[in-house]
């Protein structure tokens, strides 16, 4: 594996029943790079992220993350690699038996290598950064969707991972908070130099955050190009999707 690639996927296939969701995905994300992944609903974006984290296994193909294969490994074997990766889930995946503060502290506490005082300082700073100062004692069930998302971001980034995977980091947030969150993610990335892979339906906001955007459609990456020019992508399919136009090849394919 090239030392420059934080994520390397080769010919990855994933099938659910008779439906082949991913039909030979090959994708590299360079170390320190920021790649956005977009595509229609239920096209397999979240599944792809789970495959990268080793939470699911592909039917075929190779996946290497931070220089290590995630295939056919038992849970304990994946532990050291997962400690280097932060993941924000689409549906938050917050632990409802813990408070906001305990959720964010959880990854640090489980490592057992950081003092309680340092954990408290880092968690407090992270919650302040995502605008949740004062909500430390709340249970996650008491939070709105947007607040849960911000707790999820805080938990995914509190340990300064080398690779951060965001599944819809701003879904459910208002435009101002969305921009604040992306500014925070950008500042974090600039500080840590982490590699970022982000899935978002908010293409315009995503394009301001990432360097490149890849378009996943019908099991394949059909486009990959600079984020800054995504609105003028040469592929009419991508152009229609990112512009949200009703007429075009995407609609015809769906019909």
């Amino acid at each position, binding site marked *: 594996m090239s030392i420059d690639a934080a994520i390397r996927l080769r010919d990855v296939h994933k099938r659910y029943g008779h439906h082949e969701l991913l039909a030979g995905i090959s994708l590299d994300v360079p170390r320190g790079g920021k790649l956005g992944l977009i595509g229609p609903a239920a096209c397999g974006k979240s599944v792809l992220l789970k495959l990268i984290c080793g*939470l699911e296994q592909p039917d075929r193909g190779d996946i290497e993350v931070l220089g290590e294969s995630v295939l056919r490994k038992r849970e304990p074997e994946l532990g050291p690699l997962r400690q280097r990766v932060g993941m924000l889930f689409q549906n938050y995946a917050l632990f409802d038996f813990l408070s906001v503060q305990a959720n964010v502290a959880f990854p640090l506490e489980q490592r057992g290598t950081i003092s309680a005082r340092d954990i408290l300082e880092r968690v407090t700073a992270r919650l302040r950064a995502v605008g949740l100062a004062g909500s430390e004692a709340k249970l996650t069930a008491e939070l709105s969707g947007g607040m849960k998302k911000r707790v999820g971001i805080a938990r995914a980034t509190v340990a300064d991972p080398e690779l951060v995977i965001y599944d819809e980091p701003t879904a459910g947030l208002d435009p101002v908070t969305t921009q604040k969150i992306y500014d925070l993610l950008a500042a974090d990335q600039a500080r840590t130099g982490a590699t970022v892979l982000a899935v978002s339906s908010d293409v315009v906001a995503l394009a301001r955050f990432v360097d490149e955007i890849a378009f996943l459609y019908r099991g394949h990456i059909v486009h990959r190009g600079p984020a800054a020019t995504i609105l003028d992508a040469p592929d009419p399919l991508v152009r229609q999707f990112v512009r949200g136009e009703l007429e075009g090849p995407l609609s015809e394919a769906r019909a």
Partner: protein
Amino acid sequence: MRQAVANVGAGALRVAEEVGGIVILTGQTLRALVPPRVDTRELVKNLYKMGNRSVPIVVLTAFFAGGLMTLQTGPFVKKLGATALAGWGAGYAVLREIGPILIALMFSGRVGANNTAELATMTVTEQLDGLRALAIDPVRFLVVPRVLAMMVMLVALTVIGDLVALTGASVVGHAMLDIEWSTMFHSFADNLRPYDFLHGVYKSIAFGAAIAMSSCYFGVTVRGGAVGVGRAVNAAVVAAAVSIMLLDFFLTYLTG
């Protein structure tokens, strides 16, 4: 006819799949205990939640179960003039069979079902994936403390239930059948052996393991949102009840 055979075959495959899944989860749980690193905070929380809060319902059930045994056997022993055996009749049935089974079924309905619902909700809301993504093994963190807590607490509740049931048998014997307190006491003391009590305790260990493993298995393998959670709870309670009856039969057959 062919369809009926196919249905039976499909049902048998489903059961085999579930039994296999429970056996695999049991293996993973045992492996997670070596070396024995248990999250003590989770263990203590579950011991309290599963045990302490079950005491009132167990006491109530056991008291009336013991009383019922005396009500059923009392008239016959009085008719035969064998009141000295009234306590033995009730105590033998309670310690060896009624106590462990009844308390295990109550425990399964209250604690096992709750455990399945909790784990299933965590599964469908991706909390288990969240743990795995943070390099935490859900079996070690969630399943092991729950299994240990359920096994320990079912034994403790069975012991409490046995004592309460014997008290219930004595109270009913005295109040409704005019059997003297001392007669009941001597009937227990002279006729019941320590093994009768231990026999029930052994069973409760096995029942606790069966309830724990089936409730955890159906919780962590749930599919399909809220509807799936309901189905998982139902399947866990049924599986636990069947396991309790089968284990009871074979343990009684093998150990007398």
